[in-house]
């Protein structure tokens, strides 16, 4: 199950990386006038931090516990009694 979620995360991360690259390419290729290096630097640093945060958050998720929680949900919550 972890492998499936890892693959999904890798797929999402690749989409985010591709989108980031497209934005970066547009700024580098087409910018005219002004100091766009600063904007590009902020974008790269922000993207790198968010990638790192995303990876750390993904690594901290206990998928087994979530699976067990989902399986045991009917036992934890009784809709008739409301608890």
């Amino acid at each position, binding site marked *: 199950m972890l492998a499936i979620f890892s693959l999904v995360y890798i797929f*999402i991360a690749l989409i*985010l990386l591709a*989108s*980031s690259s*497209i*934005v970066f390419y*547009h*700024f580098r*290729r*087409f*910018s*005219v*006038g*002004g100091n*766009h290096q600063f*904007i590009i630097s902020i*974008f790269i640093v*922000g*993207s790198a931090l*968010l*990638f790192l*945060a*995303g990876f750390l*958050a*993904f690594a*901290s*998720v*206990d998928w087994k*516990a*979530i699976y067990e*929680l989902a399986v045991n949900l009917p036992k*934890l919550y009784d809709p008739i009694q409301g608890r």
Partner: protein
Amino acid sequence: MIQFREGEKIIAIYRRHIIVLVSELAAIVLFSLAIIAVAISSGVFIPAGFSALYPLILFSAVLFLHLFWIAAFIVLADFFLDVWILTDQRVIAVEQKTLFSRVVSECSLSKIQDTSIEISGFIPTILHYGNLTVRTASEHQDFIFKQVARPNSVSEEIARTAREFGKITNDIVSP
């Protein structure tokens, strides 16, 4: 990348008014703040039995923030890459319609005929921005400086530059 001619001097570079960028970014910033608030408050209000979900909520929040981060820079790219350049030889209009659609048009200063300004709405009137249309002798469409700041000053600067350099440019262009 725009190729300037040899000896061509940039007189001015115009972009949309900064308030246009701010208004487009405001929604993204608000949604991002809402996601951060949900992520933080879920740590406090999540029931004890469901604490395993908290890292998943944080992970989802980071993913959404990353998406918003990219969206914000797409908006920034659209703002900064929509540009109108006045040089001593011509007017160049670059319009980034979408990320993969870009129109670059140019007109010699000697072909500029007249300009008109359109300021409509409460905020554009207060903040002095609007559309400036530059009519040309060309058969192609007119140049529209969209939501440009202080269109009166821009119009005057174009007229002054056309008066100053237009004839010289004409001499260069037509042999």
